[in-house]
């Protein structure tokens, strides 16, 4: 890694998460018709924080929360040099008639979200799907996909990588890093 730079951490990171949760509450009120779905693997780490924070603020006992793996729906199967390992999907409910909040950590080309929308269709026909991303990399989108809720917007060149490092403890120092590979 070189040009390693922290974009967001500490208090500002927590503030961003809190703000996103309040934006969700503004639009979804008591979440009766809403479900939260994290995209495996890294989107789930972010979704866990959102879920826990929402519980702290609103104490919603039966907020529907699923984890969706999109490996089998990707359009780069058989074109990648290193194959992706599938993660676990845990969806104990159908999304028919629900408002779905898809959660992923970084929105970049939009291809993961396209795959997630395909996968989601196999659990019913949602009324609405929204996208929540911690990081929105504005440049080099391959598809017409945009976030409805954004933690931070990053303008980075194609060679740069953006990664979210989650601390082991939920109240630890989480960071968003930008770097280029040697």
């Amino acid at each position, binding site marked *: 890694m070189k040009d390693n730079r922290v974009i967001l951490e500490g208090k500002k990171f927590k503030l961003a998460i809190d703000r996103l949760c309040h934006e969700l509450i503004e639009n979804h009120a008591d979440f009766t018709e809403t479900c939260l779905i994290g995209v495996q693997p890294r989107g789930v780490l972010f979704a866990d924080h959102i879920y826990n924070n929402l519980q702290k603020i609103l104490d919603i006992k039966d907020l529907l929360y699923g984890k969706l793996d999109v490996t*089998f729906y990707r359009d780069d*199967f058989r*074109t990648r040099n290193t194959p992706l390992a599938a993660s*676990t999907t845990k969806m104990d409910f159908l999304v028919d008639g629900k408002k779905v909040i898809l959660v992923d950590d970084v929105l970049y080309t939009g291809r993961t979200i396209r795959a997630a929308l*395909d996968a989601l269709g196999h659990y019913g026909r949602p009324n609405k799907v929204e996208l929540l991303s911690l990081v929105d990399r504005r440049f080099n989108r391959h598809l017409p996909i945009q976030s409805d809720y954004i933690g931070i917007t990053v303008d980075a060149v194609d060679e740069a990588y953006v990664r979210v490092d989650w601390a082991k403890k939920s109240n630890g120092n989480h960071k968003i890093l930008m770097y280029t590979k040697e």
Partner: protein
Amino acid sequence: MQLSTKHLLGIKYITREDIQLILDTATQFKEVINRPIKKVPSLRDVTVANLFFENSTRTRISFELAEKRLSADTVNFSASSSSVKKGETLLDTVNNILSMKVDMVVMRHPAPGAHVFLSHHIDANIINAGDGTHEHPTQALLDAYSMREAVGDLEGKNIAIFGDILHSRVALSNIFCLRKLGANVRVCGPPTLIPRHIESLGVSVSYDVKKTLQWCDVANVLRIQLERQDVKYFPSLREYTQHFGINKHLLDSLKKDIVIMHPGPINRGVELTSDVADSKQSIILQQVENGVAVRMAVLYLLAEQRQV
């Protein structure tokens, strides 16, 4: 993670890591086949030929369902209704099918080693769905998957295989697979149906059904393959059942619960009585369900190696 091989010719030719990867991927596919829509688009640009030169019900349906649930195109072929009857060679038959742009071949053939021979001559990925008395790798993988589901990690577990070991490709693939996963394996059956020198594969041999049941955590009971027996290996089925059949009374006399498995088709009343085959201890139908998930994993992981 990637398989170390381009074909699944037998468990003998793959590594422990390959087996773990297939079983772990199968877990994700089991979730897929229990969804309301049991289909993923991964293999939408792949064509699979199912070539069955020998009869099959379960394996053939299972492979076909696995392929369809991965969105692959499939073509089916059975020797009895094809030009094989007119004297066409195996290689000619397969090359003709492959020239129609087929990517993967699932084949069952009565000749042991037919798949290895074919792998030297064609480019498509080959999956062995049974070759004579040699190997039946996907059955061993689904057995290992079902055992893992029932009793957890197989390292150090005691697994017994009962019945016609001599003619069973399931037994051989099971032995390779279970040994690679670190399980202790014992085979049990009439001395005439246990191959000589089988201990060299790292298994122990017993001729006492009750003692073996007492020893094992899982009993995989095999069918007596009368169609492959050219001479009499035991006096009568009745006598076989009396000495080597597993019944409820025998299981109740053990002071432990063991898991009962059978790759099918069952000869009810011969190797297993109906009350055992249909008991709570039996996971025979789970094996069939898991078969689809495991075959999806094998097809998916092999297809991954065909870069486009």
